[in-house]
C-alpha cells in the first residue's frame, strides 16, 4: 500500500485529486493549495474535506448564527458561551450546568435503531467533554403521518434506539416531543438533548494546553465507521483491489459509553486532564485540529499508534473515522500512568497518539512518514464562509392570505363535543405514553418531573434541592407561516413550559432543522428563524448557549417544515416547590392566565380537522410571555399553585383534558362570557397558562396578576367525580 506523503505531494503538484467526490468545490480545493503552498496529501485532503463540510464548518449558517453572540442579552450566568462543545450556565452555589441539543436525522432514516442510538451517544459525549456528569436526556422527534408506511418503518426503531441506548447508559429520559406531519415523510427528525452538571472548578475545555503534554485517545477502537466518501482516497492508496468493505452504518455500544463516562469522570475528578474533546463528526481530524488550534497551536500525532478494529484501514480513513464511544484527552506526562490506570480500572483502552508543541503546525506521521503538515486553525476554524443568497418565497403572500376564516367551525354543543373528542385523539395531541413508557425516567434518582409534565426537572444538589428544568418546543407549521415569529413562538413555548414548572428560565439551546441551504427560499426561512430567535432571546434575557444546525432535510426538492427546535433551561432553588400539572382537591379554583384571541393559523384544529395550513401564526408578545413567567415562578415560590399547565397545541380544552386525566378527577368549566366557546376551547394564542389554586389563595393570585399586569380569568373548579363539564354545553367522562 503506497502512502501519499508531504514529500511526494511537494514533487507531484500536477497529481489530480478527487476533491469533488469529497464534496469540495474547486475554489475550496484551490484555497487549500494556497494555504499549504502545495497540493494537499490525500490525508490532508481528507481532513480539510470533512472539516470544511457543512456539518462541521457551518459555512452556510455561520453568518446568521453570529447574531446569537452579537445580540446576546447582558447576563452574568454564562460561564462558557457559543463555540465550545456546549455552553455552560451558572446556576448558583458553585454549580454549573451544560446542555445542548443536536440532530441525527439522516442516520436515523437509514438505520432507525442505530441512528437514533448513536445520536444519544454523541450528544452525551459533548456534555462529558465539558467536564460535566451527564444527568438526563430528551428527544424531540418528528415523523411523517402516523399511519404512513415510512413512519411505521422508522418510528419503532428510532424509539427503541433512543430507549435502548439511553436506558443502558443509565440516563433518565425526562422529556421530548413527538410530532407528525407529512413534510417529515422520508425525512424524520431525531434531535437529542443532554444536560449535565459540574462544579465551576471542574469545567474543562477542548484545548491542547502545555507544550510537551500528551494526546491520549481512549474508549472504543477505531473502525471504518462513517468514512463514506474518503474510501475514494483509501482505494487510491491500495495497490490491490482496494480496501475491505466499510460499514454502511455505525453501531452504538452503550455499555462502552457508560464505561467511558465513569472513566472520564474519574480522570477529571482526579485532576489528570488538561484539556478534553469528544470524537464526533470528523473523528480524529476534528479532535486534533480543534484541540491544537484552541491550545498552544501545535501538535504532533503518530497515527499508526491508534488502536484499530480493522487493520486494513488507511491513514486517511483513520483520520476520518466516526467510530463511536471515543474521547481524546490532553494529559501531563507525569500524570499519564495514573490516567492509564483509571482507564484500565473501567476496562477502557487508551493509547498516547500525540504530543502538544508550539510549532503552530499540526503534523501527522504514519510509520515514520510525514503525511500531514498543516496550520490547525485553517482546518478547524478558518474554513470557508458563505453568504448564501436568499429571498422571501413568492408563495408566502398567498399562504398568509389563505387564512382560517373560511374554515367551518363547530357551533352547537354536539359539534363542539365531537370536535374535542376528535382533537384529543389526534396523533399530535394524544398521550405519548406508548413511547415514553419505553424510557427509564427513574435512574439516578433525581428526576422530579418527567413526561407528561410541561418540563423535565432534575435535582442537582441533594442537600439544598437546587435543580434545573428543561423543555424543548417547536411548531413547524407556525414557522412555515412566518419563520421569524415561528422561532419566537418556539422560544416562548419552551420558556413558558419551564416557568410553569416553577423554574426561572435562564438560557437557550437550539437545533435548527431546515431543507437545503442552496435553495434561496429555504435559506430565507433559516435567516428569518435565526433572526427571530436571536431577537427573542435578547428580549427575554435568555442567551443562546449553543446548538446545532441540520440542513438538507428534504425529500427531492420538497423541504421539511422549517423546524427550529428550541430548548430552554431554567433553575429552581428548591425542587420541592416544583409545580406539576396534577390538580388536587375538589373545589380548588381553575384560572386561565393571559389573553385568548381568535387565532387559528397553523393551529392543531386547522391541521387535524381541516388539513389546512395558512394565514398567520398566533401573535408573539414576549413582554407578556415574560410577565406570565414572573407570575408562574413567583406563584411557585409563594406556593400559591396546586397545579399549572401551559396552553399551546390544541388550546385550553386540550390542557383541561390533560390535567383531568393526569389527576383522575374532572372539573366544571364555565366558558368566559367574553369568549366564543370555540375560540375559548381551541385557540392557540400564546402567553397563556391554566393554573389551579386553593380557594384561600385566590386573593394572593389576583394580587400577583395585578402587580404584573397578567390577565386573570376564573374558568371553573375541580370536581370530585370523573366528569369534565363544560357548563351549558356538554360533559365528557374521563372513563371514555
Amino acid at each position: 500500500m503506497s502512502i501519499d506523503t508531504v514529500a511526494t505531494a511537494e514533487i507531484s503538484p500536477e497529481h489530480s485529486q478527487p476533491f469533488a467526490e469529497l464534496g469540495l468545490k474547486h475554489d475550496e480545493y484551490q484555497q487549500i493549495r494556497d494555504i499549504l503552498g502545495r497540493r494537499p496529501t490525500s490525508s490532508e485532503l481528507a481532513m480539510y474535506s470533512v472539516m470544511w463540510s457543512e456539518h462541521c464548518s457551518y459555512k452556510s449558517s455561520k453568518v446568521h448564527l453570529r447574531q446569537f453572540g452579537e445580540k446576546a442579552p447582558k447576563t452574568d450566568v454564562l460561564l462558557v458561551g457559543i463555540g465550545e462543545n456546549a455552553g455552560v450556565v451558572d446556576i448558583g452555589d458553585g454549580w454549573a450546568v451544560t446542555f445542548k441539543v443536536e440532530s441525527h436525522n439522516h442516520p436515523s432514516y437509514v438505520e432507525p435503531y442505530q441512528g437514533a442510538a448513536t445520536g444519544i451517544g454523541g450528544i452525551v459525549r459533548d456534555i462529558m467533554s465539558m467536564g460535566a456528569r451527564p444527568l438526563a436526556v430528551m428527544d424531540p422527534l418528528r415523523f411523517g403521518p402516523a399511519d404512513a408506511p415510512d413512519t411505521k418503518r422508522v418510528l419503532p426503531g428510532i424509539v427503541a434506539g433512543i430507549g435502548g441506548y439511553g436506558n443502558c447508559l443509565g440516563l433518565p429520559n425526562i422529556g421530548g416531543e413527538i410530532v407528525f406531519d407529512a413534510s417529515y415523510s422520508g425525512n424524520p427528525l431525531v434531535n437529542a438533548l443532554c444536560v449535565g452538571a459540574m462544579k465551576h472548578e471542574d469545567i474543562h475545555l477542548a484545548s491542547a494546553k502545555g507544550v510537551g503534554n500528551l494526546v491520549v485517545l481512549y474508549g472504543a477502537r477505531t473502525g471504518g465507521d462513517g468514512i463514506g466518501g474518503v474510501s475514494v482516497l483509501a482505494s487510491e492508496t491500495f495497490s490491490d483491489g482496494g480496501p475491505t468493505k466499510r460499514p454502511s452504518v455505525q453501531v452504538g455500544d452503550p455499555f462502552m459509553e457508560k464505561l467511558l463516562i465513569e472513566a472520564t469522570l474519574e480522570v477529571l475528578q482526579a485532576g489528570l486532564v488538561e484539556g478534553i474533546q469528544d470524537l464526533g463528526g470528523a473523528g480524529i481530524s476534528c479532535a486534533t485540529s480543534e484541540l491544537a488550534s484552541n491550545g498552544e497551536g501545535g501538535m504532533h500525532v503518530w497515527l499508526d499508534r491508534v488502536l484499530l478494529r480493522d487493520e486494513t484501514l488507511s491513514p486517511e480513513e483513520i483520520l476520518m473515522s466516526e467510530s463511536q464511544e471515543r474521547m481524546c484527552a490532553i494529559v501531563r506526562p507525569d500524570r499519564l500512568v495514573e490516567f492509564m490506570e483509571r482507564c484500565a480500572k473501567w476496562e477502557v483502552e487508551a493509547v498516547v497518539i500525540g504530543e502538544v508543541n508550539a510549532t503552530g503546525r499540526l503534523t501527522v506521521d504514519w510509520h515514520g512518514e510525514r503525511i500531514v503538515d498543516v496550520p490547525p486553525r485553517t482546518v478547524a476554524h478558518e474554513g470557508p464562509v458563505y453568504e448564501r443568497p436568499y429571498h422571501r418565497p413568492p408563495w408566502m403572500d398567498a399562504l398568509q392570505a389563505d387564512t382560517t376564516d373560511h374554515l367551518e367551525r363547530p357551533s352547537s354543543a354536539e359539534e363542539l363535543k365531537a370536535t374535542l373528542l376528535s382533537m384529543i385523539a389526534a396523533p399530535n395531541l394524544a398521550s405519548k405514553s406508548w413511547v415514553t413508557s419505553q424510557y427509564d425516567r427513574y435512574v439516578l434518582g433525581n428526576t422530579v418531573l418527567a413526561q407528561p409534565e410541561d418540563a423535565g426537572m432534575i435535582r442537582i444538589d441533594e442537600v439544598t434541592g437546587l435543580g434545573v428544568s428543561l423543555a424543548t418546543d417547536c411548531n413547524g407549521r407556525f414557522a412555515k407561516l412566518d419563520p421569524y415569529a415561528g422561532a419566537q413562538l418556539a422560544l416562548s413555548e419552551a420558556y413558558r413550559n419551564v416557568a410553569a414548572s416553577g423554574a426561572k428560565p435562564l438560557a437557550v439551546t437550539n437545533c435548527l432543522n431546515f431543507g437545503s441551504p442552496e435553495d434561496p427560499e429555504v435559506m430565507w426561512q433559516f435567516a428569518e428563524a435565526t433572526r427571530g430567535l436571536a431577537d427573542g432571546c435578547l428580549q427575554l434575557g435568555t442567551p443562546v448557549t449553543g446548538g446545532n444546525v441540520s440542513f438538507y432535510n428534504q425529500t427531492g426538492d420538497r423541504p421539511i417544515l422549517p423546524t427550529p427546535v428550541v430548548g430552554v433551561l431554567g433553575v429552581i432553588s428548591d425542587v420541592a416547590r416544583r409545580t406539576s400539572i396534577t390538580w388536587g382537591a375538589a373545589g380548588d379554583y381553575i384560572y386561565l392566565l393571559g389573553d385568548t384571541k381568535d387565532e387559528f393559523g397553523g393551529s392543531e384544529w386547522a391541521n387535524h380537522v381541516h388539513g389546512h395550513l395558512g394565514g398567520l401564526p398566533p401573535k408573539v408578545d414576549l413582554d407578556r410571555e415574560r410577565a406570565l413567567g414572573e407570575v408562574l415562578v413567583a406563584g411557585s415560590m409563594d406556593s400559591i399553585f396546586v397545579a399549572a399547565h401551559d396552553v399551546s397545541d390544541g388550546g385550553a380544552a386540550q390542557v383541561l383534558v390533560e390535567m383531568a386525566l393526569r389527576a383522575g378527577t374532572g372539573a366544571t368549566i364555565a366558558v368566559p362570557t367574553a369568549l366564543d366557546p370555540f375560540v375559548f376551547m381551541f385557540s392557540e394564542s400564546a402567553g397563556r397558562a391554566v393554573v389551579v389554586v386553593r380557594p384561600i389563595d385566590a386573593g394572593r393570585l389576583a394580587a400577583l396578576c395585578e402587580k404584573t399586569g397578567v390577565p386573570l380569568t376564573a374558568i371553573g373548579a375541580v370536581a370530585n367525580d370523573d366528569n369534565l363539564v363544560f357548563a351549558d354545553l356538554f360533559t365528557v367522562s374521563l372513563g371514555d
Partner: protein
Amino acid sequence: MSLRVGVVTFPGSLDDRDAARAVRIAGGEAVSLWHGDADLKKVDAVILPGGFSYGDYLRCGAIARFAPVMNSVVDRANAGMPVLGICNGFQILCESHLLPGALTRNDSLHFMCRDQRLRIENTSSSWTSDFMAGQEIVIPLKNGEGGYVADERTLDALEAEGRVVARYLDMNPNGSRREIAGICNERGNVVGLMPHPEHAVESLTGPTTDGIPFFTSVLKSLVNA
C-alpha cells in the same frame, strides 16, 4: 454503630447510587463494593443493584455472575447473609443459582417503565419483614427482560414454601409465570425482585415511598439477628 450494607458496582451497573441512597434513608451505612474485588469489607448485607451489567450482552446477569465479588457473595449468602438483587441483580442471583428459575424477554418485547402495583406475599424474608402480610404497594418497574420463568415443579414449590415474595397486581407487565415479581431462597435471606424499591424512597423523586420497608426490614432483621 449503624449497620453496613454493601452495594456492588459491576461495569454497567446503573442504580447503585440509588440503592446506596435508599440504604442511607433507611438509616444504614452504604458501602460500595467493586465487582473485581472479592473483599466484602465486613458488610452485614449486600445489594446487587439494577442496571445493564456488561451491557446485558449475551444474557442479563450472565457475565456478572463470574465476577470475583460474586464468589464471596455466594459463600456469605449460603452462610445466611442477607442479599437483595434488584432487577439486573435478580437476574444475577438466578444466573448464580442462589435463586431458582430465570428471567426472560418481556412478552410485550418492549422495555417497560411504569409505576407498578404489587402485593407483598411473604413478610418473613430478611428484606420484607417490615411489611404487613398482603400489603399492597406501588413502586417503579423498568425492565426489558423481567419475565420470570421456572418449571412447574419449581413454581409449585415456591408457592408451597411461601417463597413468592411479591406478585404483580392490575396487570402482568412482562409475562412472568404466576405474576411473580420477586422470590426468596429457602432461608429467606436471599431475595430477588424485578421492580425497583430504591426508586420509591422519596416522595419527591418516586411515585411513593413504599420502597423504604425493604431496606428498614434488613436493618431490623440484622439488629435482631
